[in-house]
């Protein structure tokens, strides 16, 4: 282990002395201090803090990702070119140990830079929250809505399968189903339509969602009801009046709150703990009491959720930074693997492709299903699907299977919405991205690196 740590320490020392770390720190501080001065929020206090958090942490992650990408690709490939690796590999150090040492150097640097950046961002938030700048009420508002960690609980899903099958059978009997469409695709379309209508509240109507909270709310921290909707009125920013009723399932005595909201953007209201009556099963009802006949459509995915208190913002920020570190460790492993086996420019391109693939994981997964259409323009199972389509779909399926486990919570979205990033998410990401995927990178790279000739004349 001593040689591995020596290589890691040497990588850190070289990065510091070559002024890479200094320049990175300069860029990070410029982003953390300078960016908030140049961007505008929606004018609300919560919006301003959200924008600050989003831009500063986002910029930090982008800068460190690019730096890790470049440093990972260059760590071994530049040493192969400068021939320093020849001296190292003539010592009793396995090539896997060289790879591990370089990777540990990268992750140690990232940990230090993320810690410094996180401390600077937190300092900026504390400065914003200082009593000299905000009233107590404003501070409380921020502490309740943004600077907090809350669980995100979606309503219990609607089971529309049986109803969708029934409608399909009826339409098929009536000859209203196109014969060239796969049955599953048509049934899914009917299901989606049913879910959408279950989230639509026509004028003068009300709609109820049932939530199962992880625990009955206690303490002083309210539960936040967060929602976003569109309306049948197409004018942007139309105001809609609605009445929220919240209480334990089956109880008539409920907490009521009338709200007038614009149809664009997300909204949040604080529901006192007393409204839940010590119950985990909660009914949330929305009554459309708008004077004008406007229907309200809540987004079926994430359009309405209850957010009970989960912990402090500080803890959430720490977990967000850990998730970011895990992601950077994975980026470093991919870049280092490519840079160990390929020349710097080729490694940079290959790493870019892999990271793009991971980023577009959901889209790749979608293409891999029957919804993707390629050369023939025909979906899977449709008449006219070509062999080339089939092959490409299998390739995409494999790619999708490989990158799907790497998808995780969007750290920025969670943190700026006050949503809790749980320890289980951090542990899961560490297991998948660091232990399994980075370990896989190490194993494959070591196997190939052991077979690579290092002192070829063209190198």
């Amino acid at each position: 282990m001593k040689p591995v740590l020596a290589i890691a320490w040497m990588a850190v020392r070289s990065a510091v002395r070559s002024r890479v770390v200094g320049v990175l720190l300069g860029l990070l501080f410029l982003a953390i201090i300078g960016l908030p001065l140049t961007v505008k929020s929606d004018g609300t206090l919560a919006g301003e803090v959200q924008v600050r958090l989003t831009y500063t942490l986002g910029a930090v992650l982008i800068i460190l990702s690019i730096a890790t990408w470049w440093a990972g690709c260059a760590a071994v490939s530049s040493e192969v070119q400068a021939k320093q690796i020849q001296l190292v590999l003539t010592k009793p150090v396995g090539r896997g140990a060289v790879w591990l040492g370089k990777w540990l150097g990268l992750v140690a640097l990232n940990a230090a830079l993320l810690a410094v950046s996180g401390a600077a961002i937190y300092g900026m938030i504390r400065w914003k929250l200082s009593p000299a700048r905000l009233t107590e009420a404003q501070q409380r508002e921020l502490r309740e809505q943004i600077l907090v960690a809350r669980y995100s609980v979606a309503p219990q899903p609607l089971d529309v399968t049986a109803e969708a099958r029934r409608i399909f059978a009826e339409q098929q009997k009536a000859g209203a189903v196109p014969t060239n469409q796969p049955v599953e695709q048509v049934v899914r379309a009917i299901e989606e339509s049913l879910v959408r209508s279950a989230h639509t509240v026509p004028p003068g109507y009300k709609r109820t969602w049932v939530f199962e909270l992880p625990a009955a709310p206690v303490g002083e921290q309210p539960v936040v009801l967060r929602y976003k909707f569109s309306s049948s009125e197409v004018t942007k920013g139309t105001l809609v009046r609605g009445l929220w009723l919240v209480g334990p399932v089956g109880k008539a005595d409920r907490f009521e709150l009338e709200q007038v909201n614009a149809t664009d953007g997300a909204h949040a209201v604080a529901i006192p703990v007393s409204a839940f009556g010590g119950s985990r099963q909660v009914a949330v009802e929305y009554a459309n009491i708008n004077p004008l006949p406007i229907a309200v459509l809540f987004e079926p995915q994430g359009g309405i959720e209850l957010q009970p208190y989960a912990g402090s913002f500080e803890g959430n920020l720490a977990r967000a930074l850990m998730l970011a570190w895990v992601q950077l460790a994975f980026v470093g492993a991919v870049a280092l693997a490519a840079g160990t086996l390929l020349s710097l420019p080729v490694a940079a391109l290959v790493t870019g492709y892999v990271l793009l693939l991971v980023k577009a994981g959901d889209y790749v997964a979608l293409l891999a299903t029957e919804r993707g259409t390629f050369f023939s323009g025909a979906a899977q199972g449709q008449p006219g699907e070509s062999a080339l389509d089939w092959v490409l779909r299998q390739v995409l399926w494999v790619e999708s299977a490989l990158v799907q486990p790497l998808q995780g919570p969007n750290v920025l979205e969670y943190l700026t919405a006050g949503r809790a990033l749980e320890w289980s998410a951090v542990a899961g990401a560490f297991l998948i991205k660091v232990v399994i995927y980075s370990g896989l990178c190490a194993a494959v790279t070591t196997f190939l690196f052991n077979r690579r000739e290092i002192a070829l004349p063209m190198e």
Partner: protein
Amino acid sequence: MNDSAIIQAEHLTKVFRDFWRRPKVRAVRDVSFEVRPGEVFGLLGPNGSGKSTTLKMVLGLLHPTGGALRVFGQSPREVKIKARIGYVPEESYLYPYLTCEETLDFYGTLFDLNAGERRTRKEQLLEMIGLQHARRRRVGEFSKGMARRIGLAQALINDPDLIILDEPTSGLDPLGCRQVKDLIVALAKRGKTVVLSSHLLADVEDICDRVAILYNGQIQAQGPIHELLEERERYRLTLPHDLPAEVLQRVLAAVRAELGAEPAVDHPRRDLEQFFIEVVERARREASEASGVGPSPGVAAYLRDQASPVGSRELSAEERQRAADETLKKLL
């Protein structure tokens, strides 16, 4: 082939291929040699003759295309045998942001040496290469010669059994060259095996026990250096320097009478390298301050044979001459 050989190469071939795996350059062709324990073996040849390629195969950095190669009886790609090898490359491939001390410490750690051992060897090596005063300077700021010295020191940090030197005197001043040669002799005296490649024939002649001469990737000649160079049909007569002129005349007259021919007589010339070293040493004694490489006390203590200090192995020009005279006397 000898089982106890440190390096055994049999019909070694190396072909460099292009991107499409087509043969591009045949760098080494059917090369066979062996290096025995404790000998100084030289690979000679002009540029591009396959010396460095052969050494890099021995080090496991390149893989032979054909033939067999064993180092310490194992594949050169075996990691654990590298604990017994020290390698000085043709250029100093060092990390420019590390200081002199850190460089030696780094490579010492790769050999898993403990901190105390690293510290001791570092100090002795720095003293040996005359760079104690530059211990905290970054290697990237060094001249080529200074960097070569650090390159040499890093190869000795593990007290290796086999030292491989690729063009070891390249980039060194005559003083440095002499130190490297003395070092090689000292290491050989201590039972270490040394393999070096060079196209500087005088260097090789001074220190090698056996040589192989490569050209176009093939061994053209191989054997003990004294056998390869000795002209057994000719003799050289060296007389003591304080010989009175009349005695010399009598000796010449006797030779003329015996041979019936006029013998060639001239004054022996000093070795330029020896002369240079004497001049620099004198200047150094007179100067109070000097930049660059400082004076060296000789080989690092841990590399020396305790029973027979290296100073006794360091032959002066006179000593070499005296030894030659004695040999000649025995022959005559």
